[in-house]
């Protein structure tokens, strides 16, 4: 057996795993490539020639940027509300004892398990039944997004809380810290990374949601709905710029988070 073959045999699983990982990046590479594309004609998606125009002028289609801004607004607002409500609920579930906790756990789990089309259509059925079908728009989208983000926030914060060593809190109490001091100076800083992670997850879920939003949006357009709309008639290359920026931003956020984590770990040891 030659050396490369032996190496491949030993590392076969790793190589296959890396191939799968590489495959998940193929469409990202295409998105980035296309963001520099000047197509030969409006309906041709093949790579025409290289250009920076799309990056220089991302709002060439103002309706795309309107939709983008709307998605950011809805995402920020529903993340804020879902994170506050979800964090409170997670504290209740981990730190407090009450009747009906397993029923509550189930209620929190179900929105994550139900198919989006069912969630979306049941909300629309409610809005129609209560006479809100004429007011579909920003606020109905907001209500829907808080609903499905809430569960993810509860699960993420609950995991962080449950995995937390409560000796530190006990030590604070032993040293005569009041419950409020213990909470704000010990508990909250320890849980905060979990809350931040939950908020980021919630924002990206809200920002990216199409199925539920589309059913409850009326004539309001979010970014995914805009992309859906132009998919039939020809996608402006600026959509790829937005896609590439989203990828870059998330990578930066993850890297910053990782660096922060490392620093915190080093500071503690």
């Amino acid at each position, binding site marked *: 057996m030659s050396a490369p073959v032996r190496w491949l045999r030993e590392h076969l699983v*790793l190589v296959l795993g890396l191939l799968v990982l590489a495959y998940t990046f193929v469409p990202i590479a295409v998105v980035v490539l296309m963001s520099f594309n000047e197509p030969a004609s409006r309906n041709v998606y093949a790579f025409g020639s290289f250009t920076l125009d799309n990056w220089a002028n991302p709002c060439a289609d103002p309706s795309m940027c309107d939709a983008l801004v709307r998605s950011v607004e809805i995402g920020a607002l529903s993340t804020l509300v879902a994170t506050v409500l979800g964090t409170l609920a997670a504290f*209740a579930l981990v730190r*407090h004892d009450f009747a009906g906790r397993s029923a*509550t756990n189930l209620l929190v*789990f179900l929105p994550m398990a*139900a198919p989006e089309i069912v969630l979306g259509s049941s909300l629309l059925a409610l809005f129609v039944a209560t006479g809100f079908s004429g007011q579909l728009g920003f606020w109905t989208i907001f209500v829907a997004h808080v609903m499905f983000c809430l569960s993810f926030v509860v699960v993420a914060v609950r995991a962080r809380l449950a995995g937390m060593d409560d000796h530190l809190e006990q030590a604070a109490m032993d040293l005569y810290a009041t419950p409020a001091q213990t909470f704000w100076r010990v508990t909250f800083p320890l849980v905060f990374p979990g809350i931040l992670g939950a908020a980021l997850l919630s924002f990206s879920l809200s920002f990216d949601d199409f199925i539920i939003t589309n059913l409850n949006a009326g004539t309001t357009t979010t970014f995914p709905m805009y992309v859906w709309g132009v998919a039939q008639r020809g996608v402006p290359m600026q959509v790829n710029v937005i896609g590439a920026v989203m*990828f870059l931003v998330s990578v930066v956020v993850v890297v910053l988070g990782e660096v922060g984590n490392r620093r915190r770990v080093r500071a503690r040891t």
Partner: protein
Amino acid sequence: MTSTAGVAPLAETDVAPETPAETGRRRGRTGYLLLLPGLLWLALFFVVPFYSLVATSLYDPAGSDFRGYEMTWAFGNYVDALQEYWRPMLRSLWYGGLATLFCLVLGYVLAYAIAFKAGRWKNLMLVLVVAPFFTSFLVRTLSWKLILADDGWIVDGLQLLHVLGDDGRLLATPVAVVAGLTYNFLPFMVLPLYASLDKIDPRLVEASSDLYAHPAVGFFKVTWPLSLPGVVSGTLLTFIPASGDYINAELLGSPNQRMVGGVIQSLFTDANDYPAAAALSMVLMVLIVVMVLVYVRRAGTEELL
């Protein structure tokens, strides 16, 4: 989701003087107060809508948004909807199932590589698993449209290898739809699989090889059974959203690959046939719940929550 959901018991005595309960949790009203706003939101916008959906599915099919609907307990809505749309319904479950299977194979390899072979690159690889999925779902799916296009490299390559005929294509075929679904839902499979594989003590696998088990035997007798909780939650987390999805079918398929989600969507927004849409939505939900219950019982993993 076994890892996050099972609340770790805090064995220490509670700091609060009132009730040192066994679990270390505090009793009293504060718990309810913290929970109330979130529960209220879920009750109003998740539980009540579900009731609305059931009611809507039984309304008089002759009603309209303009004239209003009457509750006539029209169970016939279900019969009518299924008679007309049983094909997209079955297709959804079939495509969802196929995509889940492919995700399981690809996801297991990736999760296994991360858990056992990545060494100090473990965290980086985990980050890379989710990184592509922070770019818009729709933008990524559209880019598959480009990759699988008739004059794209993949189709050209497959034609060169005579896997595809000269006029063969990938776009607008079931292959493209299932490939899109597999791609889009892969992280839902990888993360629970990883969580479960990472918990396995490598000494158990070593022990099996010390006892002269072939690596393959070691895998099937030790690693695979121990990773079953991850397999079960991963397949559920993939199957449920994949069979409810219609973005892939509409963007990468043709009208022949229509999935039931797309039918429900257009019945609601284009045809305004709310009773039929609600009935189909209910049927999809019930079918999924039944399949999940049967599957979970057969797989024997009860501690999913």
